[in-house]
């Protein structure tokens, strides 16, 4: 108490200045608003790090809830990409009758090539077919046991782009079957269509799971922030008592939710990345068996950014709900 204030007569000259809170100047306050945000950010981050076990638990739950739909979505995208190749290359196999010689086959191919709906017609003699089968099927040795070549000669027909639709391809098949020397024209479209239908169904399913898990993240963050608010009831009361606005009190909790969402998203990204690494080897082996150099695609930069953005949005949303619901109820008594 060494610096006791002077008598009342010195009131005017005292450096206390204007009464009523002694607010700093307006531009300083605007600056301070930014500083306040930065402080709230760092403060909420510090709060997270002071309870590492609880934070890790919450983050893991959030990360799993985000990683699961992301991984499924990624798998779906890869499947679509893989099946897309087959879809685009809708081909017809036009099997020649056994009586057709190799020369006749070339003529047949030329005639087919002349058709309007056909982009390309490639003749495949019985020997060609055998060689290809030997190379791709892995049953080459079994063929050696046979004393003659069981495979028919054929012409591989690729329709022009305008005739790629299922109906058009089927019509073309009928047209081809009417040609001399053709035994059968086979369209391999049905299984592609089935796969597409299956993928569409799976896409819906993944969407549903994503929505539910997103809701889960919202609730997990909301509940974490709610507990945080209740734990800091006293602090909130005191802050309100000395003139803290709702915004000031809200800020650290909102940033808390933002961090949970962001770090949860990061962790989810790591989980997805590790999953991709683990799966890529076997998938490439499988693709190689089918004669493809297909490899798994990652989420890419925009996908990763999207996942982080989703995490942040869900974190902010969850904390916003909790803050809106509980902060107003806490008033000094």
């Amino acid at each position, binding site marked *: *108490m*060494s*610096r*006791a*204030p*002077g*008598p*009342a007569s*010195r*009131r005017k000259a*005292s450096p*206390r*200045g204007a*009464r*009523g*809170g*002694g*607010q*700093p100047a307006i531009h*300083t*306050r605007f*600056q*301070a*608003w930014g*500083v*306040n945000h930065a*402080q709230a950010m760092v403060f909420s981050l510090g709060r997270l790090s002071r309870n590492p076990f609880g934070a890790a638990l919450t983050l893991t739950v959030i990360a799993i809830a985000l990683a699961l739909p992301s991984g499924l979505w990624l798998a779906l995208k890869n499947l679509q990409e893989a099946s897309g190749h087959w879809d685009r290359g809708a081909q017809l196999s036009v099997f020649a009758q056994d009586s057709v010689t190799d020369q006749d086959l070339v003529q047949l191919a030329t005639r087919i090539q002349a058709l309007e709906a056909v982009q390309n017609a490639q003749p495949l003699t019985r020997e060609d077919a055998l060689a290809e089968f030997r190379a791709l099927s892995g049953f080459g040795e079994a063929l050696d046991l046979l004393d003659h070549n069981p495979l028919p000669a054929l012409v591989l027909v690729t329709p022009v782009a305008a005739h790629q639709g299922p109906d058009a391809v089927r019509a073309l098949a009928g047209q081809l079957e009417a040609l001399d020397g053709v035994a059968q024209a086979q369209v391999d479209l049905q299984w592609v269509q089935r796969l597409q239908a299956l993928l569409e169904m799976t896409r819906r399913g993944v969407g549903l799971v994503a929505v539910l898990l997103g809701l889960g993240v919202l609730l997990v963050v909301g509940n974490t922030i709610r507990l945080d608010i209740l734990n800091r009831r*006293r*602090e909130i*009361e*005191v*802050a*309100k*008592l*000395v*003139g*803290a*606005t*709702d915004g*000031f009190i809200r800020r650290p909790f909102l940033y808390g939710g933002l961090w949970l969402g962001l770090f949860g998203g990061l962790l989810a990204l790591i989980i997805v990345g590790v999953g991709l690494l683990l799966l890529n080897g076997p998938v490439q082996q499988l693709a190689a068996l089918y004669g493809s150099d297909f490899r798994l695609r990652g989420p890419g930069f925009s996908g990763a950014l999207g996942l982080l953005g989703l995490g942040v949005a869900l974190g902010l949303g969850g904390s916003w709900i909790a803050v809106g619901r509980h902060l107003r109820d806490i*008033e*000094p*008594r």
Partner: protein
Amino acid sequence: MIQFQNVVKRYPGGQEALSQVSLRMDEGAMAFLTGHSGAGKSTLLKLIALIERPTRGQIKVNGQHLNTLPRRKVPHFRRGIGIIFQDHHLLHDRSVFDNVALPLVILGYRRPEIARRVRAALDKVGLLHKEKAQPVTLSSGEQQRVGIARAVVHKPAILLADEPTGNLDPELSREIMELFLQFNQVGVTTLIASHDLELITTLDKPILKLHGGKLVQTGPRDEAQP
């Protein structure tokens, strides 16, 4: 300035804490508020700080009509008031310095300015050397003085104290009251609720006495009028 006109405060449940209270304290005045526990002292202070709203009657504080002050303006209004509680309301998860700094942080002061003002306030209550201490390590009297430093650090126009010497021994109580006198001397309107009549009658300031929610007596000086 604090002005009450026929103020009634009834809590939910029907209990009337204040009935028809009228009083007026000019800017820079100082007064004590006394009466039995349950007489309405705390309620009166809470009405001034807008912790409670009146059931009937008009209250005007710092030129603001509190009856019509919207909720969103309450924080700014409270910045003009420093409040001290018997149980000091300190936050135990942070140091003395950070406790005192809270109102300045809320007001948006920069760090160097905060440090300067917090140290000035702590110096005034004689606790400059304890700025890094945790509140729990302080004695009751010291904790109360930290509470006072926090209440005055942003230089409010009005200082309210609810039983600030409630659990202090007579010597410490007198020191605390001396502090309030000093703040009043530099122009802070000061209203202190206390039942320590023995102490406050020696301080030559008006005494408002509440009994059963009614203002029954003032004295010894006529600075605050019922």
